[in-house]
């Protein structure tokens, strides 16, 4: 695999050097992966396989041509075809990109224990042991325990002379218990994943124990009555909130050609009080959002998106940066070598605030403590999130447990209503990921400290 890729890189460099166009890039990848999925007493999936793929993207006469393929011997033909496609478009509006200095980088995932040296049997036994824990309660109807690893040899070349490679090792697990009592069914789920080795997934018995306990506890929890509440969000909910509700708005492809959206996302606009600071940072090694370089050959940055309440930055690809006359931020990312880069987040988080978690609780007379997230969606203006579970807060004290907590509201109002921020930021990222433009799940990470959000609408029955 390695030798073949090196030959292709040499071939690709020659092809790019001769290409009469504004910009061109070649991406190549070979992936070997193992996937195990157990549910209850069943083995749903246990596979190991490999895929190869590549793509060529050409910017020529102001238009993009893109070809992708799995027959790597067709690389020269595909380069030619991408150029033809761009020529065929002959657009009236010229598209451009920000050109960069070439980079030469060869990145390798560091790890403590190489999962490639672990036998299939050992991987199976590990996930089976977690699955056994997930089943350990009478009320558990079924479980789902998944393990996934992949090794990818990735190469990026462009007409600026960049040659970058990344030998990437990714692995993770996802654990869920589904508890049942009569007609009531309560699933609960946790996942952990990242770039690294087998150490990421070993010794996770406690995580499995917490999953089964929470699923069973949810059976006894009360359904949350609808209304407007003061909400304390835990670190994970804070992270998902900032990714979904705000992060996507900061992706420049949503605004760069839309004057109405651009007005909404004008740098300097007040997005929150002066305690709110938000970053996107692709440099956090080991995290699911880490990238040594993006899929357009740009180095990642730590981009301040909100600084003390004001909008101070946004996420760019080379194209959106050119259009808006701003700097590329290293956020042109593709799901794999056969897909086109889009503006995507990396690790997005709310920075620590001045308070302790206890201070936030003590300041909350009546409210709800919302923990974890089942899912979230936004239309760039309104959001809805389902918390995994929650607790009543009465005079600063945690009370009874609630389930079915769906938070919703206007993104801008809710961000301004973040009134206290704790100093206990944590980062998360699991086997799931972010979806956009049909490309998902793309590994990202997200996080934040505990937050107090005033007046959040929670849906409920009349």
């Amino acid at each position, binding site marked *: 695999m390695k030798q073949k890729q090196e030959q292709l890189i040499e071939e690709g460099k020659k092809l790019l050097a001769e290409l009469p166009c504004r910009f061109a890039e070649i991406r190549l990848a070979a992936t070997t992966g193992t996937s195990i999925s157990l549910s209850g007493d069943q083995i749903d999936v246990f596979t190991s396989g490999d895929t190869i793929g590549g793509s060529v993207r050409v910017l020529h006469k102001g238009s993009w041509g893109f070809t992708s393929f799995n027959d790597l011997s067709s690389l020269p033909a595909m380069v030619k075809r991408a150029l033809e496609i761009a020529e065929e478009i002959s657009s009236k509006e010229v598209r451009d990109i920000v050109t960069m200095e070439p980079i030469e980088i060869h990145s390798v995932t560091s790890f403590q224990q190489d999962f490639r040296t672990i036998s299939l049997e050992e991987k199976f036994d590990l996930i089976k042991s977690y699955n056994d824990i997930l089943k350990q309660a009478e009320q558990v109807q079924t479980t789902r325990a998944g393990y996934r690893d992949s090794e990818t040899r990735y190469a990026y070349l462009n007409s600026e002379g960049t040659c970058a490679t990344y030998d990437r090792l990714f692995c993770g697990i996802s654990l869920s218990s589904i508890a049942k009592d009569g007609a009531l069914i309560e699933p609960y789920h946790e996942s952990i994943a990242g770039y690294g080795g087998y150490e990421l997934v070993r010794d996770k018995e406690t995580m499995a124990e917490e999953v089964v306990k929470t699923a069973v506890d949810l059976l006894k929890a009360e359904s949350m009555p609808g209304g407007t509440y003061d909400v304390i969000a835990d670190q994970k909910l804070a992270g998902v909130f900032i990714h979904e509700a705000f992060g996507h708005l900061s992706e420049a492809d949503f605004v760069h050609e839309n004057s*109405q959206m651009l007005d909404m996302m004008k740098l300097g606009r007040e997005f929150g009080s002066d305690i709110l600071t938000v970053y996107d940072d692709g440099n956090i090694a080991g995290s699911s959002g880490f990238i040594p370089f993006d899929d357009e050959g740009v180095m990642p940055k730590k981009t301040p998106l909100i600084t003390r309440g004001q909008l101070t930055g946004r996420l760019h690809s080379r194209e959106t940066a050119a259009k808006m006359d701003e700097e590329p931020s290293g956020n042109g990312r593709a799901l794999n070598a056969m897909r086109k880069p889009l503006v995507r987040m990396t690790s997005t988080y709310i920075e620590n605030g001045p308070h302790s978690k206890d201070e936030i609780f003590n300041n909350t007379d009546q409210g709800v403590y919302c923990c974890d997230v089942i899912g979230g969606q936004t239309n760039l203006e309104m959001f809805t999130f389902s918390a995994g579970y929650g607790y009543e807060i009465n005079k600063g004290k945690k009370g009874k447990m609630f389930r079915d907590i769906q938070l919703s509201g206007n993104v801008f109002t809710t961000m301004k209503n973040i009134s206290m921020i704790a100093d206990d930021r944590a980062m998360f990222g699991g086997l799931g990921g972010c979806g956009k433009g049909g490309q998902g799940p793309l590994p990202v990470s997200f996080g934040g400290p505990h937050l107090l959000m005033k007046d959040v609408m929670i849906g409920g029955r009349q």
Partner: protein
Amino acid sequence: MKNDLSLHIPANARWHDILSTESKSSSISFKNNRLHGINEKENSGMGIRLNIDGKTGFSYTNDPDRMAEVTGRAAELAAFGDPEGYDLPKKAEVTFEPYDEAINSYSTAAEIEKGHEMIALLKDRYPDIHADLSISVSSGKTRLENSHGLAEEYRNSYYGFSISATYIPREGSKIDVWDSLSAPSSQSFSHLASVLIEKIEKAEVAVPSESGRLPVIVTPRAFGRLLGIVASGLDARAVFKGISPFKDKMGEKLFHDSFTISDNPLLKNSPFSFPFDDEGVMARNKDLISGGILQNFVTDLKHAERLGIEALGNASRGYASLPAPSFSNIMVPGGTIPYKKLLKEAPRAVLIESFIGLGQSNTLTGEFSANLDLAYLVENGEISGRVKDCMVKGNLFELLKDDIAFSQEREQVGSSLLPALYFPAIDYTA
């Protein structure tokens, strides 16, 4: 890709099958009203299932150089499999192909022109509108062979168009609308411009609404999203795991008399049809729910064996995955009431076009709770304006027992053909 996997099959294998797919596709994208780019993609690959000592192993590749390894890996993985006693079909027949020769006359230049025309129609009414379009075309082959002598292949073709448009009225909030169509060959889509414009026009004025239990009408598109909650319970995997609310309910009346849902892989002119499924089981049209009564689950061979039911051709897979139960064309028959009349069923109702966050609820039990992305207030059969910042919540399975009514007219929504649906009362929070 040339298939020589079967050369390496171990002698102790009880059965094996090999699924190979190849496809070529091209897509044109418009972003923010402008032609953005063209993508062309070629991909092919194959996966092999091997049953040794009653246990199944699976592996796959799309790298012609690594085919020899694949069979060995599948055999190695078989040792970890669950016991599976079912057998593979001995015969399948290509009775038709989900393929239209006209796919070959597809012209990129003509499609780009159609895209420009569509945007011009929208901009004519709303100069500030921003539309993203995608036009895609693909054709390919699916080939299935197994150790029992089955060796068949069929061609498929697909044409898809989708559009999403955003308009921000001067003093108002963002209106997002979208639509799509799919067919086995190139279609005209300009008629969708007026559909989208109408949706926006009706949303320009926001009207206040009050919380309460209200009559609700869901458009076919919104109904499609709700139907996903029912569909997940009809999947034989969920039934086997005991998390489907429909487990042990076969033959029981679960919903209103007027509710029927069928799965028809034989539907003409649909790119979602197929002559046999991805395990070689001949495709059949079947009612899943008929007159409110549970009739069938959607299953593959593995879960058919486990549940003691018959597989009716619903196994689906790509080359890199094991078969799993899957729907083909989902059909819900229309009712007796014309859509316009359905809007007049109640003096005051909410009409839902799209949800946000529907899938996040604990839908296994039918519970749902969703914000309304685009919804209207209907007064005496007329849309009076958009309702904003509101949610609906309820139990879909209970709501479908209620005195519901379907519109006569149906629309294609993805792979479904659906009417609009009237619910007498849903919890609504404004």
